[in-house]
């Protein structure tokens, strides 16, 4: 079985560490980027099977990254799970409009992240 790759874009070190631990334990190959630009470069050079995207980032927010992804052919259909601590309805709507695959608010249940990721890649 080929190991699926997931990229986590998250600037909170503790959160990205938690996600990496959970997903690694469930058989994912996990890469973490805290910086939006670096993340975009990595996505273009080596697109993963799925993306976990934080909304609030220091340089470039999650919406901007999503918009970029959906504009480029290689990542147009990339499954994206957006995690946000803000959790406002307006954010959820905007994310849906921009073509997000799943949207979850922090704090999250670990199991849900794992199953969401699994569903996204399977379908």
């Amino acid at each position, binding site marked *: 079985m080929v190991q699926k790759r997931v990229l986590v874009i998250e600037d909170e070190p503790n*959160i990205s560490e938690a996600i990496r631990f*959970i997903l690694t334990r469930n058989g994912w190959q996990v890469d973490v980027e805290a910086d939006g630009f670096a993340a975009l470069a990595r996505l273009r050079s080596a697109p993963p099977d799925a993306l976990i995207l934080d909304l*609030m980032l*220091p340089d470039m927010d999650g919406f901007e990254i999503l918009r970029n992804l959906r504009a480029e052919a290689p990542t147009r259909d990339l499954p994206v799970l957006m995690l946000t601590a*803000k959790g406002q309805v307006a954010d959820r709507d905007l994310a849906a409009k921009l073509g997000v695959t799943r949207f979850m608010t922090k704090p999250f249940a670990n199991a849900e992240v794992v199953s969401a990721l699994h569903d996204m890649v399977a379908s």
Partner: protein
Amino acid sequence: MSFNLLVLTCLGYVALLFAVASLAERSAEEGRAGWLRSPLVYTLSLSVYCTAWTFYGAVGYAARSGLEFMTIYLGPTLVFVGWWVILRKLVRIGRENRVTSIADFISSRYGKSNLLGVIVTLLCISAGTPYIALQLQSIAQSFTVFVTDMDSAPVAGDRTLIALWVAIGLAFFTIVFGTRNLDANEQHHGVVTAIALEAVVKLVALLAVGIFVVWGVAGGPADVMARIDAQALPEWQIQPGRWTGLILLSAIAIICLPRMFQVLVVENVNDKHLATASWAFPTYLFAISLFVLPIATLGMELMPTGSNPDMFVMTLPLHLGRDDLALLAFLGGFSAATSMVIVASLALATMVSNHIVVPLWLRLRAAQGQDTGDMRLLVLNVRRLSISIVLGLGYLYYIMSGGSEALAAIGLIAFVGVAQILPALLGALFWRGASRTGAALGLSAGAALWAYTLLLPSFGAGVILPASVMTDGLLGLPWLRPYSLFGLTTLDPLLHALFWSLLVNVLTFCIGSFLSFPSPIERVQGALFVNIYERPGPARSWSRPMAQAEDLLPMAQRIIGAKPAQGFFQEQAGRQGKAGFLPDITPEFLEALELKLAGSVGAATAHAMIAQSAGTAVVSVEDLMAVASETAQIMEYSSQLEAQSEELSRTARKLREANDKLRKLSVQKDAFLSQISHELRTPMTSIRAFSEIMMDADSLSPEEQAHFAQVIHDESIRLTRLLDDLLDLSVLEHGQVQLDIGPANLRKLIDQAVTSSKSVQADRHFRILRSSDEEEVMLTTDAGRLTQVFINILSNARKYCTSDAPEMYIQVRQAQDMVEIDFTDNGAGIPTESQSLIFEKFARLTDSMHAGGAGLGLAICREIMQNLGGDIIYVPGQGGASFRVSFPRVLAARAPRREAAE
């Protein structure tokens, strides 16, 4: 002639006067007053100037002083021929302003001042009473001369009784014809006609006697001239100075005498009549004076020595056996006296009632709070009473003076008295700068001098003025002697009085006018009087319309609006039987339009606007003043509106600002809540994720367990600190913070802060540069809060200073009561675009984990400093990050927050 017959003759004559006056009144009432309004009647009525003094006294005067009596006629002649301009202006103003007397004229011109009315009235009464007494005296005298059976007459030779009956009779006549009705114009056609008749009688009488004397007694004009030369006395020599003075005096009198003003101005119906009078009246005067000198000469020649020359007109025919001529002369004298008394008492009574009695009565009624009611009957009754009073005064004067003075002297004294009105009168006509104060001062000063130098001494030394005053002067001061004031002894008393009184009068009038500032109403009246010819006329009607309806419609539209204006024009056109919007421009239409416009812009403005559009009338000063006053009202109203709308827009702006602020606050609140949510959820996410991992502890290595527990612990601390900061900020922001104010040493506070901040990145070496001397400041403030700010700044510096060998320079300054501390590090500083953000909540410039805070520190610092009555600012361009903290050295118990009001 017997007394009874003479009385009957007089009564018959008076009955004739009654008949004529009644006829004239009836004609005037029926509107058939055409012939009454002829220039001839006007000219004849002017002959009221020629009184008994003229009739009898002139002959006496001629007998004593030769041709000098002519001066009394030359003055008026000069005025009518040469000063025609003054008369015309006087008459025009008088008629247009419906002036009722000379007192009214002066009062009206000088701002409708009743004070002036009273002064002029009193002056005229003082001068007029002796004059009336003189007429009574002359009638009484002529009676006693004429009546042969005086001793058996019912009056038993008592002249005063005759005078009394005459006075009563004249009062009755004047009341009947002078106060029939209260005409706004104060015109009395009956009286004027009767006066005109009397003018004819006295002229005919004098001419008849004269003709008899020249052709019947002497041998014609040549003989008379020879006799005159033979009779000439040394006193008959012409004295140029005295002539000039007397001509001037009589010229003034013809304008200023109340009775002359009455017939000349008040009774005038058309100022064109003056044109006729300007030659006809001098002719009359010439005719009446023609035979004076012959009569005087022949009287002196033929009459026994000791005869009174004042009575020659009558006694000469009597002496020569011509009783019929003597009776005619008697009637002439009688008519001269009665006409003067009637007009003078009418004029004086009008003044007394209008300026003294009615104002007093009204004030009395007003003081009693009573309604003034119908004034008509009151004014008429007051006037009737006044006539009786005036005649009563004349009679009293006659009794008291005893009739001793020569007739002419009394007349001249009166002339000088009324001459005091001249400066104010001429000022009224020609000088807009003449003021009420000046007129009052001039009149009073002139009247006082006249009384002191002429009137009072005329009673005789010791009667009113003590003999000592006459010889030694007032208070024993020689230069105050009545007949030689300031040592002026070269003039005879009459000219002396005329000179001084008029000089002082004119001077005080001018100085008073220059020094006082006329009130608005004085200025308006002044302009009205002086510029009388610039006015189109008294009637504000549209006699000669030239406007086009096409011009008037747009103007009306501007004022009352397009639709109403068009509607109005259409309606007016329809009324004229025309279709469309343009009616014929008739005077009726213009009046209706003016009325319509007046509703919007005021009457005066409407009048002026139509005048302008119609191009007919000149806009008068009165119109302009009315416009100005309306404009002022409109401006006041519109400025009130403006103020209100300004207030409204101010309120609206405030509301808009408040609304904007609320919206901004609402947005800020949403953003803040969103921020808080994010800041709280972030540590909780870690805590939840790791605690879920920890639940499955069996699969974890002990190292992993310890690490994850540590993360959970750190994130819990972070969460707690965040909550603490939020609560702190909330308390500070709402000004509910309880400050713990006490004494503190600044150096110790900074020591404490430096020590506390060392726990942040404790491994990093941070050099702190301080100058302990400046730091020795004793403070009275909340030391704990201040230290919190210092710690925050120092901790930030430890966290963010980018230098490899980080340094912090702390510099303390004192300015007045404020302490200022700069904290400057040697790092990269804060980017310019972020400097304005750093004091905002959650304005974290780098990622939170690296900073280890929630981004509330500087926001809290700012709140603390404001609570301490100071501030914290970022100082750019100091080589590194530089924060300046300033606060009062001594903080009052509760310093008001700088933004407390917000």
